[in-house]
């Protein structure tokens, strides 16, 4: 997926909006139109994400390119949201009820989202490590002919890969520390294939007791759809943007290894179905939630499509290497099968190689954008506070 496409459409949308802003004279009707347009765009974008074809690997739900699209859309929605909230409107509105309560809550959510971004950025480092291990598997298996040596080499890397994925899932907490201690002595090791050496996983980037699941749960605090008259005012885009933010963070945490994710599937945010824009988000939430529940029991490092593929191929190739060692040799048919899987794995690695760094950079962009908007909102609040008569 060429990122420039989104870039172009994003800029297009912005410039359309600019014209509208210039054209409008700040009356209420215009504001209503703006709000409508905003929620229309939101629903269009998320409908596109929901309808992503699962069978084309590079567009599959929760694949790297899907996540990048999600983040692109987040950035677009965010820009429009800021436009609706701050451009053309009477700035003092944000200090009046109900926004005087909703904006600080929104800012609070933003800060929590920043920590999620950091945790996910860190989690991507683990994914990168899986990629490197999978690449070793590929290197071993692309040799012709595959002999015992290649099979052992692949198995060793596979063992590391599978346990690394498992360790990360079992939470990057204290339990792991003992497991990955390097100071193993040769004494305890008797089997021919020694303990996989390259255990490497997420170090606690965020605070010790920090939990991604709890963080996202906390982001849903006070998140209720505006009622009655509020529903037609600026309270509604604040609500919409909050739901988008929570959803995006939730999806990232579900996809990418992250510190402490117990209870992630239990999180539901109250987005009423009758809201048009919310339908696709609810659809996506349900779809991903199902996946998570399925995997939760088995234990997985994350729902990232590429990782799931890696896990699946890893298991098949592991069987292959096992039987290789058991029988000493392998039928041509099996060898071909393994070669085909290894080509698939190579393809997955390639997609990671291409996509992981841009994804990481994009998450950073989201991070900076959230910071920027927060600063601007705080400044706006500050300005309003100054212009109102002092309390003393």
């Amino acid at each position, binding site marked *: 997926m060429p990122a420039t496409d989104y870039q172009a459409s994003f800029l297009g949308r912005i410039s359309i909006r600019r014209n509208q802003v210039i054209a409008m004279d700040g009356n209420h009707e215009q504001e209503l139109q703006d709000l409508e347009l905003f929620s229309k765009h939101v629903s269009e974008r998320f409908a596109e994400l929901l309808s992503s074809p699962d069978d084309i690997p590079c567009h599959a739900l929760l694949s790297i390119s899907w996540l990048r699209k999600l983040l692109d859309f987040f950035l677009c929605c965010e820009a429009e949201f800021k436009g609706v909230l701050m451009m053309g409107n009477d700035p003092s509105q944000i200090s009046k009820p109900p926004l005087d309560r909703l904006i600080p809550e929104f800012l609070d959510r933003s*800060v*929590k989202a*920043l*920590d999620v971004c*950091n945790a996910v*950025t*860190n989690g991507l*480092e683990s994914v*990168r*490590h899986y990629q*490197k*291990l999978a*690449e*070793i598997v590929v*290197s071993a298996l692309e*040799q012709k*002919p595959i*002999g*015992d*040596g*290649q099979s*052992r*080499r692949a198995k*060793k*890397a596979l063992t590391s890969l599978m346990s690394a994925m498992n360790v990360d899932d079992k939470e990057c907490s204290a339990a792991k520390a003992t497991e990955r201690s*390097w*100071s193993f002595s*040769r*004494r305890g090791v008797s089997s*021919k*294939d*020694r303990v996989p*050496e*390259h*255990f*490497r996983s997420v*170090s*606690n*980037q*965020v*605070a*010790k007791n*920090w939990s991604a699941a709890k963080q996202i749960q906390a982001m849903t605090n006070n998140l209720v759809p505006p009622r009655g008259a509020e529903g037609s005012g600026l309270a509604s885009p604040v609500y919409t943007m909050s739901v988008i933010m929570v959803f995006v963070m939730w999806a990232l945490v579900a996809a990418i290894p992250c510190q402490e994710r117990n209870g992630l599937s239990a999180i539901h945010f109250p987005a009423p179905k009758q809201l048009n824009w919310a339908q696709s988000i609810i659809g996506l939430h349900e779809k991903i939630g199902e996946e998570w529940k399925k995997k939760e029991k088995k234990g997985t490092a994350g729902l990232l499509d590429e990782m799931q593929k890696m896990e699946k191929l890893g298991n098949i190739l592991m069987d292959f290497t096992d039987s290789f060692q058991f029988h000493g040799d392998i039928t041509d048919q099996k060898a071909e099968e393994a070669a085909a899987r290894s080509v698939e794995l190579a393809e997955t690695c390639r997609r990671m190689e291409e996509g992981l*760094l841009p994804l*990481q*950079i994009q998450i*950073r962009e989201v*991070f*900076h954008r959230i*910071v920027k908007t*927060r*600063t601007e909102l*705080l400044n706006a609040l500050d300005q309003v506070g100054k212009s109102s008569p002092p309390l*003393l």
Partner: protein
Amino acid sequence: MDECQSAIPAHDGDLHVVAAAHHIVKALGTTKNLSDDLRKILIDLDAHLSLITSNIDSKGGKGFVEVEERLKRVERKIVIWESDRIMIWDSGPKEVSDYLEAVDEVQTLIDSLRGLSMNENQKQKELLHRASSLLQMAMSRLEEELIHMLVKHKQQSEPTYMPSPSSQRNVVYSESVVSLDNESAKEASSKSSRSDECGEYIVDLVPEHVIPDIKSIAKVMFASDYGQEFCEAFIGVRKEALEQHFDILENGKMSIEDVLKMEWCSLSTEMNKWTWSMKIIFRVYLMSEKRLCDQVLGEFGSVNSFCFLEIAKTTILCLLNFGEAIAMGPQEPEKLLRLLDMYETLADLVLDIDALFSEDGGSFVRLEFHKLLEGLADSVKAAFNTFRVAVSSNGSLYPFPGGGVHPLSKYVMNYISMFPDYSTTLNLLLEDQHSDVASLVSEPQCGPTASLSTSCPMACHLRSITSSLESNLHKKSKLYKDEALQHIFLMNNLHYMVQKVKGSELRPFFGDEWIRKHNAKFQQHEMNYERVTWSSVVLLLKDDNPGSSSLSKSAFKEKCKGFSIAFEEVYKNQTSWCIPDPQLREDLRISTSLKVVHAYRTFLGRNPAHVDDKCIKHTVEDVEKLLLDLFEGSPRSLRNSRRMMKT
């Protein structure tokens, strides 16, 4: 390898040529002081020639006898270590070189076997498999040796010369404009972290003698196409080591949420730690790590920078995130110095960071730190502005008792006296806001004729801050009902400001002109005080008819009484007033004394006939003595003191 195949001779006659060549190669191989490369070539050639020979021998199916023999020999050498629990590199140089030679030989055999056409020769295939298995075994072993080696040696590399950060842990600037206190500001926030710059201290993260061992493993593993395994193992151990060093620096890992909620005291400590850690991590550990990577991986191209980045990334992200959290937090005035420390530290390091991460993959890191630097610059400006706003808007409801030096003056003057340490940075950052302020401060120092130090952006900002302070003090002075006390208050505070400027590095930024002007200002208040307080009192003693020689007794008595009451009133009031500076207090007493005592003495001297105890309540000496009680800040009343004097 095609040449090898085509070189396989068809005629028996050629066999002799091959044999002869083989012979020569073997003879050359025994030569001492051959370069490594040459020796390797000879060994390869040797292997090829023997294969050709054996291939010719084996026409008909069986063969590869010599290859198999050689394989068996190295197999023994490699397998024997599998049951051994001692590490090869711990066993001795002989064992190491034997093992490396054996691995080399396996690789050579594999290359040669691969180089030959694979005519469904079962024997050849089997030998190749065996050799590959053997290679895998050896590589696995080498990886283990590598990890063992890296782990074993990493602990010994703690640099011992570095001063511990605990010496500055207590250095916390805990005050804020809100909780104004006293003089403690100055010593509390001395810029301790600057004096002990750690500079560039590259240390041996792994003892020097181990490097060749690591390198030898790297060489063999890369040559056998096991470079990926080498990198993963290397990265794994080094990354963890770096994280351990980072933990030792006691950087609490905090979420942004935590940082934003943090109390100023702990936040200040964390900001100090960050400044310190940045220097140590980049200047010491990452520089050293880079050198280690260069030493070990220098000859393997882009792998080098890839490994370095992987090792460094998580630690760097941690430092980056704390910086971001600080840059986005509310910029209270008390943060200014810590922010300046952070900014200066990063500004100092940014070139090093660019150099460390000059490759493509590192552009992410470079960019993020440049962004952070901008963010910190904005924070410094914001904090500077909030400081300025706080100075001019700090309000009081009640007059400051005694008219002494207001805590705000102390706070501001002590705080800004720290700024000269940061003058380069402040000049840089305040440049763009310079013109606004320069026009605000309409003093000649800001003009084009002024000297450099008084016209730089920081100087103008400093003077704009003190003039904000002055106007705020004027506002505060209006809270006193007594006009004389207003003057005492302003005199005290202006005098304090001048003293602070004169006695610190602020002086060049304010300039002599400023000092002269402000000297004149407080002296003006001094004179105003005297006028307001004493003029009316002295007036009571004035001779109504300058012509006559002396007063009537009753008139004299009246004047004496009037003077006593007025004097006692002043005494009662002004003993509770305060002039903290002893010199200033002394000066004011002298000039008061000159004025009052002189007038009183003259008055009494002109009327010698009436001078007796009954109508003169205070003698000249009494008055002189009593004046010494003024401005001591302890209220007294003359009713008591007089009675005590009498008895």
